[in-house]
């Protein structure tokens, strides 16, 4: 290997941190759904994909910044999540993992190909955003869109953390995650908690999608990358709550940055998935998790 330019390395690591924050946000919804409901959702990445297209449509129709569409897409996605829950997920609660995977792969196929039918294969980007200026801090330059995406993600993670620890709904969710039967005995309406959890988890992907659209484009195959990535983070973060997800997302972001620096952009996914292998092999219960 060639010698690595330290300033380039630093630059890439900073990029990795901000990307990692966004990854944490992408994975957060999945971690909630898997943690609270024990549902294996293979379509999570495709929720992000649908969110990206919805952002594209709203932003270009109303000529607003893609990041601002989150105020509209998040509530829409909350409802969308509850509808999906009622139509499909509720029927496979507690079913064998294989069945859950099959059903959510079916959902993924529907969503992906719906996107393909409506928008065709060429990626769709929003041509305007307020975050175009790069920001320079000493030796480091960062795209403002990335900076904003990272900061907003961090704030969202913080808010969800507060929701889980401080509010009645959050406590009900955590109790359900701990032990469904005990939660039921405590008078928690578990089915309702599930619906809300699925809605919340889904609406978080809409926020992530809006942020992604400030620097990237929507394409029908986005789901695979973000889906696998989210599962990698959940595998690492275990069910260690928001903190676990945040730490794992950051690690993945930094590993990705190191891979790009050392081997090149082609090695990006390679490094993430190799890490995934080793995490699963040696820490089957997640680095920061309990289960």
């Amino acid at each position: 290997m060639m010698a690595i330019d330290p300033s380039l390395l630093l630059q890439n690591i900073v990029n990795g941190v901000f990307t990692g924050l966004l990854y944490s946000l992408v994975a957060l919804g999945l971690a909630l759904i898997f943690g609270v409901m024990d549902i294996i959702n293979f379509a999570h990445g495709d929720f992000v994909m649908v969110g990206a297209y919805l952002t594209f449509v709203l932003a270009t129709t109303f000529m607003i910044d893609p990041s601002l569409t989150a105020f509209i897409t998040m509530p829409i996605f909350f409802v969308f999540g509850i509808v999906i829950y009622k139509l499909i997920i509720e029927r496979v609660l507690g079913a064998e993992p294989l069945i859950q995977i099959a059903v959510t792969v079916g959902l993924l196929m529907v969503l992906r190909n719906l996107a393909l039918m409506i928008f065709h294969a060429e990626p769709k980007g929003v041509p305007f955003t307020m975050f175009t200026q790069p920001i320079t801090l000493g030796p480091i330059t960062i795209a403002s869109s990335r900076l904003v995406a990272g900061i907003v993600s961090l704030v969202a993670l913080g808010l969800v953390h507060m929701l889980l620890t401080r509010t009645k709904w959050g406590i009900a969710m955590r109790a359900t995650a701990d032990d469904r039967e005990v939660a039921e005995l405590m008078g928690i309406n578990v089915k309702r908690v599930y619906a809300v959890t699925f809605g919340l988890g889904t609406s978080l992907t809409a926020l992530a999608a809006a942020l992604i659209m400030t620097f990237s484009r929507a394409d029908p195959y986005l789901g695979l990358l973000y889906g696998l990535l989210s599962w990698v983070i959940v595998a690492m973060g275990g069910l260690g709550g928001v903190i676990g997800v945040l730490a794992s997302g950051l690690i993945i972001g930094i590993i990705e940055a190191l891979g790009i620096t050392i081997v090149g952009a082609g090695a990006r996914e390679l490094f993430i998935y190799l890490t995934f292998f080793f995490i699963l092999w040696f820490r089957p219960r997640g680095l920061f998790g309990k289960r």
Partner: protein
Amino acid sequence: MPGVLAKKLALTKERLYGLIGLAIVLALVPVFLGFNFYYVLLATNVMLAASLVAAWNIIGGYAGQLDLAASAYMALGAVVTGHLLASYGLTPWIGMFLGAGLAVTVAVLVGYPTFRFGIKEVWYALLTSALVVILMRIYYLIYGSFETYIPHMEPEWLYLSFRRYEVYYYLLAAMVVIIIWINLKIKSSKLGYYLAAIREDELAAEALGIDVRRYKLYALMIYAALAGIIGGIYITLTGILSYRLFDPWLGIVTAVMGIVGGLGSIEGAVLAAVILRSLEEYLRGAIGATYPGSHLLVYGLILIIVGVLKPEGLASLIRYVKNKLFYRKREEVK
């Protein structure tokens, strides 16, 4: 006489007749299609899917491991066969076995620690899906986005370099029959019983003396070898070597067809592959051009419906039809 043969092949008479019947039907398909170039190609694609799903059934259906890496093992067989053919003129008849050898090696390298650390269910599924991407990226680092074309070579039989699709069709149809036979043979053997026990309850299986990791690894190796050979045949058909052979999506679709077929039922798995793949080709022809992706959308809907309403899959339907056709007393012991 057929009784003796059935014993030799370790199949019940009923199964042997079924297999022979299937072979005859498959042999006649190109005739019914009037040896139409395009239709035979479609039928070849259907056979490709059916053989891959039949191979998958060993790890997915019998051993109950949700493996999503069928395309990885197939691609390994394909790239080994293809590169040896394109660069050194090695006949694919040898190349496909070397390819299968590499597929088995990778399967062991990945499978050993994976089973050793007790990785199951979602995590196994994700890990195998990630394996496809990893192999794709490694191939990409070596060969780049570059596509290598295998030229036409004579003699045709030695290099499997035919200008018509019929031969490929028959090769893959033969693979379908052979792999179904292997499935049936496994099912009625000690390995089959052990895999079924592992699928149902690993701890109970282990407490009855089954070395769970070892038997899972056996299943994985057989499946990887078969997928590798299928890949070796496939590459002589397409002749294009590319990183795109490592297709995570194909790995998922293969498992999906096996699941729709009903886990552990080889008849169901192959039938599902044939129906879904034919349907896909039909829909692609009928509406796919106007609405790209619509055929896969229908696919997804079927999967949701099967999963939500009939998690037993097509196998339960087959069982139902069978019971109607040959009604036998259930209580009777064979």
